[in-house]
């Protein structure tokens, strides 16, 4: 094996989260082998943190928190109203001067504690970023981010977004697509995000009694975004029938389930009875098993294989991905029944994946992590979250169920903001960094003569570091 620092640097940027000091040389003897080895690490993709609650437990904690807060507010309102009444009764008397109902005792405004939902979010966000920052190369974490975006939920809709990623995505990034699909579509966060928890079969017991009906949102997005892909093999009738299949997939309400609220439950009472036909297949009514069967078939459908292969290549390689590469990954997917480790291996070992041109612009979060890795700096999670949001990629808050875009064009607009952040970061963190050493660590042989010159000629270390973080070789992967 020849030593290949250039390919090593490319491997780290393209398939990982960018080099840390020394990592280019560490994998230079066999960059592709190092990537593949990361797939074999025990517990690859998992986060072990005793500090993190299950998503259902978080859901319950926030429910209790909100209930208590509402009660406190109400109690306070009652107290004030009672005081007002006393004052009214005393109106005209001398006492009115003292008991002013509209002037509660002035309490010095205490800095309010971080609300529980935000605390939980920050904890999850920290675990999410720490895993990326601390990975040797970061291929598996990149896959976690990829799949988390493919199967996105929104933290505005549920407090479970972080737990969802740990519970539904991470265990399966190197497993079978069908397992991830099942974990995702049955996860309370997804059921909430795409409104399936309210979807009721019109002919089900609950549907008849409560005069309620279908919500097609989840069924449609599964077909359009999660599996087959838009404008492929399904019709509106398939969407409707699939929605019927998924009725009853809902969540245990926390108000009446203090121990299991927020967990998945199949509610037969809301499930549309009878067989359903979907893309030419008929599924007999087996309760929750009906949905499982449909998802299993969707996972092995060639359209799904192609959709997944296209998105992977689009994400890692290029906006206009080479069709041979897509075909090869599609075939690998079909041959292995959607074994995602095999598909990624096919990607890493494909010659088309190693074009020297860095065709893709790093997504904001990837760029932030790369900057932290290159400098070895740590940053407060709040600062990271804010920077990522400022760059148009708020964590677990995609603009739509389609997730954040993987097109360069979507992120080019934010280049000016990246410069602001790079500049601020450089002025905060440039202390003690030799810009040229950071450049060697972060870019190595990828650094162009022009970039080297720009950094050497910078008027100050902060400017040099800002230019490095903004250099094309660092913006791209």
């Amino acid at each position, binding site marked *: 094996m020849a030593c290949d620092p250039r390919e090593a640097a490319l491997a780290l940027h393209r398939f990982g989260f960018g080099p840390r000091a020394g990592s280019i040389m560490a994998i230079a003897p066999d960059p592709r082998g190092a990537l593949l080895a990361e797939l074999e690490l025990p517990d690859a993709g998992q986060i072990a943190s005793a500090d993190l609650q299950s998503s259902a437990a978080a859901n319950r904690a926030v429910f209790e928190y909100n209930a208590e807060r509402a009660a406190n507010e109400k109690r306070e309102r009652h107290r004030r109203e009672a005081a007002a009444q006393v004052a009214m009764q005393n109106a005209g008397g001398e006492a009115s001067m003292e008991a002013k109902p509209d002037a509660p005792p002035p309490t010095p405004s205490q800095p309010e504690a971080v609300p529980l939902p935000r605390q939980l979010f920050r904890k999850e966000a920290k675990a999410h970023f720490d895993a990326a920052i601390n990975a040797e190369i970061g291929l598996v974490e990149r896959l976690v981010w990829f799949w988390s975006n493919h199967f996105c939920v929104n933290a505005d809709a549920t407090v479970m977004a972080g737990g969802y990623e740990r519970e539904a995505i991470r265990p399966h990034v190197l497993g079978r697509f069908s397992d991830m699909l099942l974990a995702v579509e049955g996860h309370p966060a997804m059921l909430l995000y795409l409104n399936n928890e309210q979807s009721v079969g019109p002919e089900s017991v609950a549907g008849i009694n409560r005069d309620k009906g279908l919500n097609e949102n989840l069924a449609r997005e599964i077909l359009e975004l999660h599996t087959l892909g838009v404008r492929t093999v399904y019709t509106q009738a398939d969407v409707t029938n699939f929605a019927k299949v998924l009725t009853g997939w809902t969540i245990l309400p926390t108000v009446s389930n203090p121990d299991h609220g927020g967990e998945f439950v199949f509610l037969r009472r809301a499930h549309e009875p009878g067989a359903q036909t979907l893309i030419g297949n008929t599924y007999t009514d087996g309760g929750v098993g009906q949905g499982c069967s449909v998802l299993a078939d969707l996972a092995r459908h060639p359209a799904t294989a192609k959709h997944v292969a296209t998105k992977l290549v689009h994400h890692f390689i290029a906006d206009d991905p080479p069709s041979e590469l897509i075909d090869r990954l599609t075939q690998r997917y079909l041959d292995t029944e959607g074994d995602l480790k095999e598909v990624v291996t096919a990607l890493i070992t494909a010659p088309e994946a190693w074009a020297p041109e860095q065709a893709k612009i790093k997504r904001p979060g990837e760029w932030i992590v790369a900057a932290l890795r290159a400098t070895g700096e740590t940053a407060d999670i709040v600062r990271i979250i804010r920077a990522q949001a400022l760059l148009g990629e708020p964590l677990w808050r995609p603009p739509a169920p389609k997730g954040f875009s993987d097109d*360069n064009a979507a992120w*080019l*607009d934010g*280049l*000016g903001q990246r*410069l*602001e952040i790079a*500049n*601020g970061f450089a*002025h*905060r*963190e*440039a*202390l003690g960094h*030799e*810009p040229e050493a950071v450049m060697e660590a972060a870019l190595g042989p990828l650094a*162009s003569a*022009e*970039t080297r010159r*720009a950094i050497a*000629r*910078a*008027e*100050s*270390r*902060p*400017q*040099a570091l*800002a*230019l490095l973080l*903004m*250099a*094309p070789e660092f*913006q*791209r992967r």
Partner: protein
Amino acid sequence: MPSSSLVPTRRELLLGSSALFAWALVPGKVRAEGRDPRFLTIVLRGAADGLAVVAPVGDPDWLKLRGDKALTLDGQTPALPLDGFFALNPAMPNLHRLYQAGQATIVHAVATPYRERSHFDGQDVLESGQAKPGAVDTGWLNRALAALEPGERVGTPGRQAFAVGPIAPLVVRGRAPVLAWVPPRLPPVGDDTTMRLIDLYNHTDPALARALEERIGLAAVARASGMTSELDDDRPAVQIGGIEQVRKYFAEAAGAAAKFLARAEGPRVGALALDGWDTHVNEGAVKGRLANLLGALDGAIAEIETNMGDPWRETVVVFVTEFGRTARINGNDGTDHGTATVAILAGGALKGGRVLADWPGLKDTDLHERRDLRATTDLRAVLKGLLKDHLRLDDPVLGTEVFPDSLNVPPMPGLLA
């Protein structure tokens, strides 16, 4: 901005210092004299062009050297006369007023002992106070503070310096604890940084160049920053929307330093750094980028004077830069890295109204390596003179601890009133 936000919170104190509360530094010897001096150092990073800040308008070779880029007393925007030989950049009326009031001094043809032309090394020498680059652990101002005999002090085991900015400049870092205050506004992305980046993109990544140009809506400016020399001084200054931000940042950062130093129990020594002086392209000394920067600096000087209030009488502010720039204009209407430059001193404690220079001349043979203004004054002499007469540090400490190996560079006498 409410002034209360200038009061450091406990967190801000902890940020840069192990001291839990501010200690009013009053050196013993000084206190015995009944004085309470303030000393603020402002580092201009990027190598400011001394000849464009204070021009030798009386030198017969001046016009030959700079041609239509030369500051003159009779130009469209006339320079502000100082002493008949030197004139001040017209963008600095506040400094001019202070000069006339005897509260500002210019030292010209001055440089640190560093004779190479790397910004990083030059800044390290300037701020570390060492004769050579390489030592970057502590700065001369911090060591000066550490060497002071404290007078009466309250509570804390250390002496405290004050720094503005997300990271304390090297000049003030070291053993003596540093109180850091971070302005709510981060240093803005300077026009210079943007131009350099666009230039890099233009040579390596047209897609990024286009995106950034569109983002800042100034493709024309980017073209101008490319290596064309068709521009003239009448062209509007390079503006990437930054100068207003720069003006605000300079005023806010310097003004905050003054407020801290002015407080009865505040620190007495502080430092901050202001970037953006590396004017390789379209320098714009009369009208343009450098004029804008100097205007922002002049605004910062006014802000310091105002915010200092009565203690301005006992204040010295010194503006220093790592080196000067080439005596001649380069092919891009800018100047390249050079040697000697100016140091600006302002404050009510000065015996001002003077330009101090052992003028080396501007003839080809006068120039250092036939290209730069020759250094005839060692900047360390100026700084040592200030530290000696203002803060009462003695010669041996100044020559060994504060500026190591500089016993042969005597402190410049007579700078203080």
